[in-house]
């Protein structure tokens, strides 16, 4: 492509009268209307949220407890046994949520795909279920489960299970759309049952991607489980909420730093594992 665009530089186009310009491309109606739409919508939302840069600058120039806490960050949180215990709880929540939710997502993804569904009714039900689960954010799941079973680790795990179903089933069904139909036909020709066909022709094809989605989902869950505690669903978020209530900002930022360290370490491990798998 680039040689076409650069060829004019060395040898001028002789078929054209000298000095004649090529026609300017007409401005795209779509691009123009998009640009206008973006500007209009931005102005409308600025009004709706009562947002102003002057206000932001004014807020930032006032001394505030949060940023002062960031400057006096409490590094001792990294060795605080209470914080570490809360972190173990967070990781446990993420592990259980990923394993149970991720495994439940595989049949749901299969049933929601045209090739994997035993019949249209199952496909429709699985698709609708996946879409609804997908539209509810993780914190909202936690709110609901806290109301149902009370505060603690249990509502956090339940929320992460549903969150994992949403993420993994969606990603997996995307891969299912692009699988090789050859093995499926072969299995059917050999007289396999529907389950046997899924097991021998489809699952092996999607397995490497599915496993890397599980690992990715674990990273997401770890990140999510840190905030679930803000609504009472266990883990490190509960400690953040506690320190926030006590206005102990150096401690809050200390926990956030610890959280960053944990997520970055886990991400590195996950990247390493994925590289070996895929």
């Amino acid at each position, binding site marked *: 492509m680039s040689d076409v665009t650069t060829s004019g530089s060395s040898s001028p186009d002789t078929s054209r009268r000298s000095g004649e310009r090529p026609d300017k491309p007409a401005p795209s109606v779509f691009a123009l209307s998009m640009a206008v739409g973006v500007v209009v919508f931005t102005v409308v939302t600025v009004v709706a949220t009562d947002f102003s840069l002057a206000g932001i600058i004014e807020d930032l120039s006032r001394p505030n407890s949060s940023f002062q806490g960031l400057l006096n960050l409490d590094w001792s949180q990294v060795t605080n046994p209470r914080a570490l215990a809360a972190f173990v709880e967070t990781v446990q929540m993420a592990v259980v949520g990923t394993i149970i939710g991720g495994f439940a997502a595989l049949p749901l993804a299969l049933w929601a795909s045209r090739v994997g569904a035993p019949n249209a009714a199952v496909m429709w039900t699985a698709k609708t279920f996946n879409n609804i689960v997908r539209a509810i954010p993780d914190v909202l799941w936690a709110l609901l489960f806290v109301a149902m079973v009370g505060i603690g680790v249990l509502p956090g795990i339940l929320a992460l299970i549903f969150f994992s179903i949403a993420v993994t089933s969606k990603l997996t069904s995307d891969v299912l759309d692009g699988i090789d139909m050859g093995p499926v036909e072969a299995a059917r020709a050999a007289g396999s049952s529907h389950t046997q066909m899924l097991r021998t022709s489809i699952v092996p094809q999607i397995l490497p991607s599915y496993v890397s989605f599980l690992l990715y989902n674990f990273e997401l869950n770890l990140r999510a489980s840190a905030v679930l505690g803000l609504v009472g669903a266990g883990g490190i978020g509960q400690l953040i909420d506690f320190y926030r209530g006590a206005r102990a900002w150096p401690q809050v*930022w200390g926990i956030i730093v610890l959280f960053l360290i944990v997520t970055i370490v886990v991400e590195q491990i996950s990247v390493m594992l994925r590289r070996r798998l895929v």
Partner: protein
Amino acid sequence: MSAPDRRPTGQDPGRSGSPRRPDDVAQHVDDMLRPERPMEVFRWVVTAVVLGLLAWGLSADIRWNRLVGAIPEFLNIMWLMFKDPDWSALPGLLDAMWESIAIAWLGTVLATIVAIPLSFLAAENLVPKPVSVLTRQVFNVLRAIPELILAVAFIPVFGLNARTGVMAIAVGSVGTLGKLCYEIIEGLDTGPIEASDAVGASGIQRLRWGVLPQVMPELASFAMYRFEVNIRASAVLGVVGAGGIGTLLSQYISFKVWDRAGLALVVVILATIVVDAISGRIRRRIVAGPGGTLHMTTIDPEALDAAQALAPEEQPGAPA
């Protein structure tokens, strides 16, 4: 992505020994025709590791006994939520949902405006290595902090209002948008830029005809997608008081005002689905061009997010 499974198979050709009875003959033929079972050791190791992790995870103080009452409670709540919704709450809920959408949009716009110039500092072909490494670390840190945590930290600064929500969304999105931007910049095709230079384009003309057409489609569609993701985030920001529908949601659910909570839930779900659909259409039009057909799933939010997260670091600029 879906590579065919190549599991190692044993070389053992089958059972040896001469068959005597017809049943044995059939068995023997069957054994020869059937492919060997794949190796099991790896599967057992993986199963053991997963079960071990699960057991360790379940050793947390979960108190499963509460789950017994949860299922009837769940059905009961569903019934209370949807048997007779309190429609009088609807205008307030729609208003709050609109605020959530506005927070997500404005946050995304601000993040894009900040991320584009910042990403120049992260592109290896523009700045010295230490600068790009440092900027990338900033992006990574911003990407790792959940928006809700940012909102908690911003409330003492900007107050209990939508402004805090906008700032939390904006700061949280700078990382992902910045990462995409520097990947685009590093993958820029120099051909069109050289061509613009060759025909004597001014600086602005070179930007307009050499750079913008390459950058805009991907950047615009990714920013739109980020807006969809941010709606999900901004819908719950109100839980900590940072504006939007989350405040009403958490109040209705915590105080068990189920006839309103159900309505709030429906508003969030429907608004999310509708905005996704509109935004998805626009993104499809941006990526595929007029009259273009592109399979919808290739530009779905989770797929894009995962593509960014799962893309190997060695190949910057790989289109999602």
